[in-house]
């Protein structure tokens, strides 16, 4: 169980690691939106250059990124195949009933493949170079405006960090309880559904009970240390917006202009 790495954070010293999580999150979300502006090979080329440079800057081996694509590969291939088989127009190479393979289909298939892979690469860059706890801080900072809508942003992010902190403990505990039940002869994943469900009860009950106790202890601990929900809290880790981060946002703006210039049909399609 210790081999299990939570999240995909990859320790490092690269410029991307040093960047503010807010900047990375903003840029990542923005990239996924701006991706849809591209509509010809020139604009896709620009996006690829951007993606590859960012991946290089992260200092993480390329194979790690490829591993991120693997679980999605069937979905991607399925979508691309659909696109190739059912799009018509342009030069037609093959035409059997409803199935047509045309150069339009092949081109849009390739574009869709690129879009998929780039979204995965960029979101992987963000999770690889940012600690989960920093991501939480970043999300908290970016969601601040929602406070006006009476959404308890501070409390949600506090809960998020409590959850992240407890995942390893709970994993350990679950393992222990499962081992204890195995030692008593329980076999998991055997028999029909109802039997499988019944083997779960002796795992779940002690875990739930101990979670409830733990929650109570923790809540008491927080209360005695003066936690008041709704009050303003100060933080130990302070986020600092640096020049790199402004540079990152600037790069995104330049990328957008580049895409608008390169895409066919100009600004308004």
């Amino acid at each position: 169980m210790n081999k299990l790495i939570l999240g995909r954070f990859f320790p490092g010293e690269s410029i991307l690691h040093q960047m503010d999580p807010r900047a990375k999150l903003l840029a990542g979300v923005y990239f996924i939106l701006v991706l849809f502006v591209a509509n010809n090979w020139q604009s896709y080329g620009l996006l690829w250059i951007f993606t590859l440079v960012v991946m290089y800057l992260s200092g993480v081996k390329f194979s790690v990124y490829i591993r991120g694509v693997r679980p999605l590969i069937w979905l991607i291939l399925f979508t691309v195949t659909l696109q190739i088989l059912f799009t018509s127009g342009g030069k037609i190479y093959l035409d059997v009933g409803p199935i047509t393979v045309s150069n339009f289909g092949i081109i849009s298939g390739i574009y869709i493949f690129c879009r998929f892979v780039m979204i995965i690469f960029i979101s992987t860059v963000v999770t690889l170079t940012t600690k989960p706890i920093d991501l939480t801080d970043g999300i908290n900072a970016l969601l601040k405006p929602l406070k006006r809508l009476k959404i308890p942003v501070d409390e949600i992010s506090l809960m998020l960090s409590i959850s992240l902190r407890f995942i390893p403990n709970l994993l350990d505990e679950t393992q222990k309880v499962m081992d204890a039940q195995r030692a008593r002869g329980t076999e998991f994943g055997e028999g029909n559904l109802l039997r499988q469900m019944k083997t779960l009860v002796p795992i779940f009950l002690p875990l739930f009970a101990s979670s409830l106790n733990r929650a109570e202890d923790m809540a008491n601990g927080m209360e005695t240390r003066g936690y008041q929900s709704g009050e303003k809290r100060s933080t130990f880790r302070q986020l600092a917006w640096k020049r790199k981060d402004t540079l990152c946002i600037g790069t995104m703006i330049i990328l957008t202009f580049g895409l608008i210039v390169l895409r066919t049909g100009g600004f308004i399609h």
Partner: protein
Amino acid sequence: MDVKRTLFLVEVAIFASFAIVLDLIPFLSFKIWPQGGSVSLAMIPIFLVAFRWGTKGGLLAGLLYGLLQLIIEPHIRHWLQAILEYGVAFAGLGLAGLFAKQARKAISAENSRAFIRNVIMGVLLGCSVRYLAHILAGVVFFKEYAPEGIPVWWYSITYNGTYMLPSFIICTVAVWLLFSRQPRLIKI
């Protein structure tokens, strides 16, 4: 009242991480599709919170679970798909909490019939909202990627149904088993 509030926050947070843990342990979930949509037990803790703390707790726990997944292993294909599948779908599970009061009443009155009915209704409502969100996300995604003439709605409904139906059954049985063995769990 304030003590309760802190307890509420912590408990919801711990149960959300419980849901993630159930996702991470291979023995406890079985995946039937190569990509996403596993029949996992992760929804059970969310439902437990929903029945313990009502709709608000359920919604928060679901939202947290979605956010945690987004931090740990994001599968993003489209921005609207991400909002639907990680935000709306899991928060929607929390709507099971609408039946929490009746369920709690039934359990203190030792009326097991009414209790089971409320559990089924709650889990059904939560699962339906999640199912709907996944269907919509599927349609959004395929509208963007699939060529014209593919029956997207039908495809999305069947694909998502293949794991939502078993999940619904598993969750109903589990929630009912857990609460009837240990009624203390539902009382705060």
